[in-house]
């Protein structure tokens, strides 16, 4: 285990005034890269481990500064200015630095513990006032265990409340190690059916379920979050399965339903990737209520919306 200050990792966003990622007013640090590949992911820029180029065509003023500096385009005059990455783009970031309008942005940067903590500590007065703190999300924060652990320890040292938002698909030891420095886990549970889980997320749910069982046995602060994706996991059968499973684990009571929303669709376009959930409507409020009632039937405490 390297000493904390030398640890670095890839971050893609630090959002302040996060009020849906745990108690109080929080700062959410997004670690880049995820072992799953969920169809409905609303943060597609979080999935790959390395930096990516994001393009905002509506901001482009057509000045061509991006073309002039691009090593892949070797200064060749292109008109109109393309709203895509060039073939062979290495995400060197020169175009993003040159773009006056910030129509091009590199998503993801290497950051050390002190860089991140410098940002996180800025809102201490708000954490103190509201009972908030720092939330580590992703991507999958457990996919960068050294950085995550170092950040959690740094928060502890500064008395900042910590929350980890995870998909649970991570080595058991890693998860349990972070548990010692985490005040609250927000633990995603997507699909109970193993095959459908593989289909929609790219991986089996075995590890996710076993990890949840192991974590809840040793950690008192775990809230299960179920993204409600119409047509994917909102059928009674899946909900009942989830309810049964959660209720069967001692110490687990809190469930949050996160209704699907389409705000991620535009991000796919900006990354030049297809959105597999194009056009999917959010679940109707009445259905969310039904799902909540179903889960409450298992003795769970259910909240709709983060």
């Amino acid at each position, binding site marked *: 285990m390297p000493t904390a200050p030398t640890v670095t990792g890839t971050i893609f966003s630090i*959002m*302040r*005034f*996060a*009020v*849906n*990622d745990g108690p*109080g*007013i929080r700062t*959410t640090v997004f670690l880049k890269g995820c072992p799953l590949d969920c169809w409905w992911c609303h943060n597609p820029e979080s999935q790959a481990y390395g930096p990516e180029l994001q393009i905002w065509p509506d901001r482009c*003023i057509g*000045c061509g*500064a991006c073309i002039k500096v691009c090593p892949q385009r070797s200064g060749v005059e292109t008109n109109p200015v393309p709203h895509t990455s060039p073939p062979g783009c290495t995400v060197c970031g020169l175009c993003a630095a040159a773009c*006056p*309008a*910030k129509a091009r942005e590199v998503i993801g940067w290497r950051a050390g513990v002190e860089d991140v903590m410098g940002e996180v500590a*800025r*809102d201490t*007065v*708000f954490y*103190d*006032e*509201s009972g*908030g703190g720092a939330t580590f999300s992703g991507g999958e924060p457990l996919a960068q265990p050294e950085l995550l652990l170092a950040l959690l320890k740094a928060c502890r040292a500064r008395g900042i409340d910590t929350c980890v938002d995870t998909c649970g698909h991570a080595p058991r030891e890693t998860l349990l190690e972070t548990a010692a420095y985490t005040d609250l886990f927000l633990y995603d549970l997507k699909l109970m059916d193993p095959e459908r889980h593989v289909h929609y997320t790219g991986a089996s749910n075995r590890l996710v379920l076993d990890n949840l069982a192991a974590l809840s046995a040793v950690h008192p602060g775990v809230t299960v979050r179920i993204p409600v994706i119409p047509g994917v996991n909102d059928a009674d059968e899946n909900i009942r399965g989830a309810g049964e499973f959660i209720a069967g684990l001692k110490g687990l009571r809190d469930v949050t339903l996160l209704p699907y929303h389409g705000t991620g669709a535009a991000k796919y376009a900006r990354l030049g990737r297809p959105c597999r959930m194009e056009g999917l409507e959010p679940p109707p409020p009445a259905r969310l209520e039904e799902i909540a009632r179903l889960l409450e039937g298992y003795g769970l405490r259910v909240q709709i919306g983060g």
Partner: protein
Amino acid sequence: MMTERVKRLRQESLDAVPRVSTERAELLTAFWRSAPDAAAPVRRAMAFRFLLENKAIHIGPGELIVGERGPAPKATPTYPELCCHSLEDLDILNSRPKIPFAVSAEARELYREEVIPFWRGRSMRDMIFASMSEEWLAAYEAGIFTEFMEQRAPGHTVLGDKIYRQGFLDIRRDAETGLAALDFAADPDAGAKKAELEAMCIAAEAIIAYARRHAGKARELAAAETNPVRHSELAEIARVCERVPAHAPETFWEALQAYWFVHLGVITELNTWDSFNPGRLDQHLFPYYRQGLADGTLTPEKARELLQCFWIKFNNQPAPPKVGVTAAESGTYTDFANINTGGMRADGSDGVNEVTYLILDVIDAMRLLQPSSNIQVSKKNPDAFVKRACRIIRQGWGQPSVFNADEVVMELLRQGKALEDARCGGTSGCVETGAFGKESYILTGYLNLVKLLELALHDGVDPRTGRQLGPRTGDPAAWTSMDDVLRAFRGQLQHFIDVKIQGNGVIERLYAAHMPAPFLSLVIDDCVARGRDYNDGGARYDTSYIQGVGLGSLTDCLSGIRQHVFERRTLTLPELVEAMDADFANREPLRQTLLNHTPRYGNDDDAADALMVQAFRAFFEAVDGRPNTRGGTYRINMLPTTCHVYFGSVTGAMPDGRRAWQPLSEGISPVQGADRRGPTAVIRSAGKLDHVLTGGTLLNMKFTPQVLEGDRGIANLTHLIRAYFRLDGHHVQFNVVKAETLRAAQRDPEKHRDLIVRVAGYSDYFCDLSPALQDEIIARTEHAAL
């Protein structure tokens, strides 16, 4: 929760059309045509008495609190002794699309025949402009500063608890005691004091007689009233008006009515144009409330109805018609009476009581532009109080605004006020701090901070006119560092502060000589004890303010210069100035770079925020501590009303990427849309300013309604407020509205007539705002929940 009576009175108030009433102008002109020869204060007191003896008495059907400034609700008097409107002014008032006042043919005729011939050349406005230096006039016309007293009198003050302790018979007795004690042999000012104290006695008698005219009118109406309920109400009105304000009030009803007569007296004597209000209304009323409940003469429901009737009286009084630059800097019907609740008591203990919550209920139910309302939040106040207010704020119409009572006390203490006076102080107008009942705190004019940098970048020349306005502070081509930029900026700043303060000195003397306010002097300590007029240094504390506008814009301009000229060195200062002068024509990439690749204020960026602090300190150091002519001191505050739009309209493109003639940032808020890191970053940036050095700062924040949904939303808002106040922030106010709602209102104003938004220190009907101001509010960053 409103009774049928209140619903009807409220609707009548909303439906009443603001119109010019010539009653006051006509009476005043008649008085002055044959005014007896006497000292200025005495003549002014006699004029005041003449007005109150002769103006029409209005008691509307169902009213419980009585008295109007004009002959009827929203019939708004004019003050030709201050500003004599021309026929052209009247035509503009009658026809302008925003903030119009109906002017009848008879009114116009009266002005043509009587008012204008008498007052032209004699009004304060005429005298002021005739007395100002060339330099002052040039700066004023260029939009470097504005002048509050050019068509309104100095009046910024708030009532303390005096009128609840003393009736005007008592106050008059104090003045008589002062007269008897005058020592003409030993006191060289005894003659002046005699005139002032005699004037005060006349004014005290005048207000008592005016109240009793209402008593008479109520008895007259009662005699003809067939409804027994209304009959007994009219009888009670008559009893109340007979007793107060001659005597100190003894009941809740009397307390409200006593205040209202004082309010009418103050705003009839002069157009004090903003802020006069009862101050800590909850604390003043609480003893009456508790007594009334105890002896069975009052119920919470009756108290609520009386308060609601009181609220409607404020809404019936639009700010008297403004023209010219004053209309541009303060384009609103609002008269800025801003009622305080909460805070602390004189002994420093928690000031929240049952009446506080009752008043919050009234604010919630009434949803009126006037009076404006605010909560004074002390660390000692319970969260329940803040949360109750947040539930009103969440509805999105901008009231109440939120102040840091503990920080306000620190401001007042820094200015040298006694601890108890500081604790009994609060805020008024938009965000202005004052010691209630004991301080004259006059706003003298807004200062265009951004224009000063524009002048510095042009060696003192105003690029809009090509005129050399300021001192030659050097050719920017020769500058090699930010120190050079700031030195030139300070040079312009110092020069124009000097010009402004010299002009203020002349204006202060003109008001002291020509416009004594003996009635206002009766209620503000220590005017009676000193035998000195409010407008001549009679108040215990006497402060003159200059209000800085555009701090966020100025900061971003400085940051743009530092980043691109001196750090990245991607262009020279002359190149930047050339691009500005061309309004960035063919330089859109440069403009975008300035907008997007510059550290900007409002993002908790320490580099940008440090420039904000430097700019703020430069302004503070240029003004704070300088003497005024009333024995008081100059201070600064940071509020714009609507002046950021006017100042923007005279300021060319600047290094923050702002295009020419567009609005500046308002208050201490970031440039519209520049703050991109959420509300906590804005609060942290604003918290780096040392608010205690000011007499008020104004921070606007805009949220989407969804952020504040549910108990969680209320908790979040409460925590943001409390955190800002832990950083010693002075004030924050909120708009809770979606930009799309505002755009819809622009497209279809008829359907959105009732849409109220927060502007800058006050709320206003969105559709009454100028299109530029509407756009400015839409452009403010909208904070959403993540």
